[in-house]
């Protein structure tokens, strides 16, 4: 898969680096049998760059720390993260060259497609300077979330069991390209919302709070789920929030530069209508 | 198996104001056998535990002093303590100053801010065991004159030792020198062959003092540094305070410079 794209990528990277347009190319390379993120800083090294169906990492996570001009390989989810970070003024557009590439869904070492890729509707990059290869046809209909069909009690039981596994390592937050707060509410000590060394209900709270913070921000790349050492299906939670934001506020994060953060704006008519809707639904 | 995590409950005998943000707790610990330079883990139940240098000499039999600067959540609670309150202590822990090794030699104490606390333990020890040591010079600097601690000891020290003071900044009522503590080194002319330098203070101060000492040709083996790190357990289990393969809590806090010289991040 993708050897043409790989050639185009190497060519583009070589051009950008040798002309001095960028200081660094952020892409993927092989290390043993693993595909890993890599930083290429000279034209002579571009042969290391690869493109295949195991380039799972969301490279946007590295961009905030790089204080140089970067060309970054961006799949659908990477580009959405970049767009959202640009909107949040976390990145300088002028320092970025986005090498867009369409994704066919990434697979793990066993060749099994990641769940986040399976449900993805945006495999094409939404923002790019150069497009490598061609755009692909996107899936149009969302999969139904099987958890929706469970009763309230069963859902609480499901999440309690999942959170019982949680070891509180915060890998889900740390691996998230959209988590960029200088001080995280989850680690705040005064007031200490999440009791350190607390019980499973604190873990429940942790994930609930994190989910509220992902509203209008999560771009569903699935990095959290992949980073989780105990395989808690966190994407269910964040996807649910994404769907709610879409339905209630008509915004999908990382898709349009003009969209405002949905919880920092309001729309009187729409909100009043939905408020009424939600109330009626409850009764 | 005795449990090293259980603090001993002790009563606060007195609280002394040292400076605007430093208080000394005088604790009901009798016949303490600590070495100068060792520290205690001080518990305020419900708020946490902090490592604090013992600032009193082991020659005092009726109490120990712990001097605490108000810098964080636990220390701010410590500052609200009153005589009669109960706190917990564990320790003394760590390796203090090598009192025996430096016996008979001249000593050059260099302290910065609250870093004078462990030095005071040693200085007062020498005051009480005077014949065992050579000449003693004390160089002490603080941000302002108001930030100097143990001022009540200064007259006593002046009468027996050579005391030099300096403040980083001018302030009203301060007629002494202004500058950094390493500038005081030009005031003393130690017999380098027979002198140990004993340094404690903020990281940046220790770093610049060390540079000055090296400029004076002090050998690494004759420089004693007392380090501060984030510690939790105090007994080498929690892993927070390492400098290379050394733990500040059980191998330090006092290190001879030549023993830690090669390590990364000794200054941060």
């Amino acid at each position, binding site marked *: 898969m993708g050897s043409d794209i790989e050639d185009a990528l190497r060519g583009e990277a070589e051009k950008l680096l040798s002309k001095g347009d960028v200081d660094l190319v952020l892409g993927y390379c092989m*290390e043993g049998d*693993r595909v*890993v*993120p890599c*930083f290429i800083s000279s034209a002579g090294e571009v042969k290391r760059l690869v493109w295949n169906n195991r380039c799972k*990492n969301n490279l946007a*996570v*590295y961009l905030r720390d790089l204080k140089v001009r970067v060309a970054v390989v961006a799949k659908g989810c990477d580009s959405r993260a970049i767009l959202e970070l640009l909107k949040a003024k976390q990145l300088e557009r002028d320092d970025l060259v986005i090498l867009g590439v369409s994704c066919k869904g990434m697979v793990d*070492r066993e060749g099994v497609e990641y769940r986040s890729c399976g449900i993805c509707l945006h495999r094409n990059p939404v923002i790019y300077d150069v497009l490598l290869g061609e755009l692909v046809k996107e899936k149009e209909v969302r999969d139904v979330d099987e958890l929706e069909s469970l009763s309230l009690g069963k859902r609480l039981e499901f999440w309690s069991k999942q959170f019982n596994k949680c*070891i509180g*390592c*915060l*890998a889900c937050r*740390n*691996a998230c390209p959209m988590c960029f707060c200088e001080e995280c509410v989850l*680690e705040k000590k005064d007031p200490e919302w999440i009791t*350190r*060394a*607390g019980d499973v209900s604190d873990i429940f709270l942790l994930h609930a709070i994190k989910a509220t913070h992902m509203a209008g921000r999560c771009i569903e790349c699935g990095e959290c789920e*992949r*980073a989780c*050492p*105990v*395989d808690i299906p966190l994407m269910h939670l964040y996807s649910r929030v994404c769907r709610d934001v879409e339905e209630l506020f008509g915004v999908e994060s990382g898709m349009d530069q003009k969209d405002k953060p949905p919880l920092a704006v309001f729309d009187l008519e729409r909100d009043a209508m939905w408020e009424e809707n939600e109330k009626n639904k409850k009764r | *198996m*005795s*449990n*090293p*995590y*259980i*603090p001993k409950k002790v009563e606060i005998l007195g609280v002394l104001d040292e400076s605007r943000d430093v208080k000394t707790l005088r604790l009901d610990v009798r016949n303490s056998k600590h070495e100068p330079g060792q520290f205690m883990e001080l*518990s*305020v*139940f*419900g*708020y*946490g*535990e902090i490592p604090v240098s013992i600032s009193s000499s082991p020659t005092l039999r009726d109490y120990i002093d712990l001097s605490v600067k108000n*810098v*964080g959540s636990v*220390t701010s609670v410590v500052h609200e303590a009153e005589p009669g309150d*109960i*706190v*917990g202590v564990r320790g003394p822990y760590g390796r203090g100053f090598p009192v025996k090794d430096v016996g008979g030699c001249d000593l050059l104490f260099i302290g910065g801010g609250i870093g004078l606390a462990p030095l005071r333990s040693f200085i007062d020890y020498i005051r009480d065991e005077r014949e065992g040591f050579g000449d003693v010079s004390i160089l002490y600097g603080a941000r302002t004159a108001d930030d100097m601690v143990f001022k009540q000891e200064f007259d006593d020290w002046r009468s027996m030792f050579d005391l030099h003071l300096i403040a980083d900044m001018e302030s009203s009522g301060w007629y002494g020198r202004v500058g950094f503590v390493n500038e005081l080194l030009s005031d003393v002319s130690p017999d380098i062959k027979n002198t140990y330098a004993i340094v404690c203070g*903020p*990281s940046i101060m220790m770093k610049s003092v060390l540079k000055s000492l090296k400029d004076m040709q002090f050998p690494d083996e004759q420089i004693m540094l007392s380090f*501060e790190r*984030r510690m939790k*357990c105090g007994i*080498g*289990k*929690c*892993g*927070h305070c390492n*400098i290379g*393969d050394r733990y500040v809590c*059980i191998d330090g806090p006092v290190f001879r410079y030549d023993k830690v010289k090669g390590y990364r*991040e000794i*200054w*941060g």
Partner: protein
Amino acid sequence: MKKIRRDDVVKLINELRKNYEVIAPVKLDGVVYFKSIGEGDVITLDYVNSAVSPKEFFLPQRERILEFTESGEKVTVREDLKSKKRVFFGIRPCDVNALLVLDSVAREEFEDPYYLDRRDNTLLISLECIEPGDDCFCTVFNTGPSLDEGADLVLTDLGDSYLVNSLTDEGRMLVSESELLKDASKTDEQKADKKIAECADSMEKLDLGNFSVDEESIKERANRCLYCYSCTFICPTCYCFDVVDRMDHYSGRGDRMRFWDSCMNPSFTEMAGNFNPRDGKAGRFMNRIKHKLEYMPSRHKVYGCVGCGRCISNCPAGISILDIIRCGVSK
């Protein structure tokens, strides 16, 4: 030596449960955990290793170390310091060696009573490996796939049965009453040796004779690291913890809790007053690697890595400590 039929292993565990709390591997959503076995738990024998290391049963993710009243007039130790007798079934040789590493830390100068109490009251039944996992490299540190010391009983998979070897008297006593164990033959023993040897041969070996950590190889990876902390949490030898006091002001009762901390977290070394002696991501990464491969050997005469491969399998940025070790060997 003895042997036990594969189908009888669960029966044996049920026998042991009469007198002991038994910890054994179970599978949930395809992920293997060690769990204190209760009614209805289905034990699995088909696994490479658990997602989270067995250290959580000795040095729990969070534990109460003290209880006290607000005024400090009453301070009591955790009540259950005398732990129940436990049997840990199915621990892999690498993880047994990891416990030996933790022992050396817990016994150094001051003894850690909470850890050692659990440790002393737990019998280990280890399951040797006959097929390595994708990221296993125990052969590098000689911590597997076979086990000669550290556990009480060692089981080796022979297909339809397991060879049972007692390494300690306690181990022998543990199964002496059981009728499920039969005498093993010489052929069984040879078969087990062959399987272990085959497994070991298929794995990488490195000469650590003049190994030293290659800093360049670390620096490059430190850039790529996401500092997600998961490697330190799942590692069987990472022992660092943080301590926090909790106080319920309504009841006037409080606890002192300790819980796992990660050296990859910037606040790990940060002191009050915002001074951080280990600033910068690279410094933290370097410390983690050096702690395992340099500081532990110099302090405790044992490598702080046992080659379980958990951190490699789980690293979101694909960083392999084995690669770093290789760089330090070939240098």
